């Protein structure tokens, strides 16, 4: 077994899973019916897909400094992407946006 071959296979796996997650999350960002569902799709898949793609790039880094930069980018994205998602959700909630509820996905106008 070649060491570079193992690294290539690991990089392929991580990049394929991460790229698929990013594309599926962007599809959810376009297709979902509500702001909060779009928030869920974009927030979760951006964090997970970004981390997976960066891990896949780490396996191909030619120099240790490139690895350090990728680790810094991954750590920063992993810290700030949930914070930004929470900030958007908090701002929308404070203005008065409410999620779609119920079986037929309507706005909760009854108060219930």
């Amino acid at each position: 077994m070649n060491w570079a071959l193992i690294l290539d296979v690991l990089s392929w796996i991580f990049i394929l899973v991460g790229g698929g997650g990013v594309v599926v999350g962007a599809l959810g960002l376009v297709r979902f019916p509500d702001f909060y569902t779009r928030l869920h799709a974009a927030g979760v898949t951006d964090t997970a897909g970004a981390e997976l793609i960066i891990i896949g790039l780490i396996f191909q880094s030619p120099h240790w400094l490139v690895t350090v930069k990728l680790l810094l980018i991954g750590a920063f994205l992993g810290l700030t992407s949930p914070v930004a998602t929470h900030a958007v959700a908090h701002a929308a909630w404070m203005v008065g946006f409410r999620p779609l509820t119920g079986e037929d996905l309507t706005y909760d106008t009854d108060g219930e």
Partner: protein
Amino acid sequence: MGAPRNMFAVATAAILVAMVLALIRAFAGPSLYDRVLAGNSFGTKTVLLLGAMGFLMGRPDFLDIALLYALINFAATIAILHFFSYKKATMGELAETAAPTAATLGSPATLGSPATAPVSAPAPGPSGEDGGAT
């Protein structure tokens, strides 16, 4: 196994497709917060695109720009949200019925058009809170 450079091309293509979809939501988003969310997602994908294209072209020096862009993107999202927090009166576009926005423009206390959102419970307005509780 596959050619060693193909994985970066695959990652670049996937990120570009996702960026196009995020742009569609950013242009077609019915509310401000959809646009902010799509812009933040677009910025995250830009960071990934800079890294992947740096590896694709054999120049991983682009990672410095990607790191800087990640910092700027987060600060810009928080700054845009803070800027538009003073603009609550025009956010009456909750549902598709954008009719009562002209009525709510005058009084900023009644947030978000009480015909469409009667349950605006944590509204920070000092008065006019019981608008839609029926």
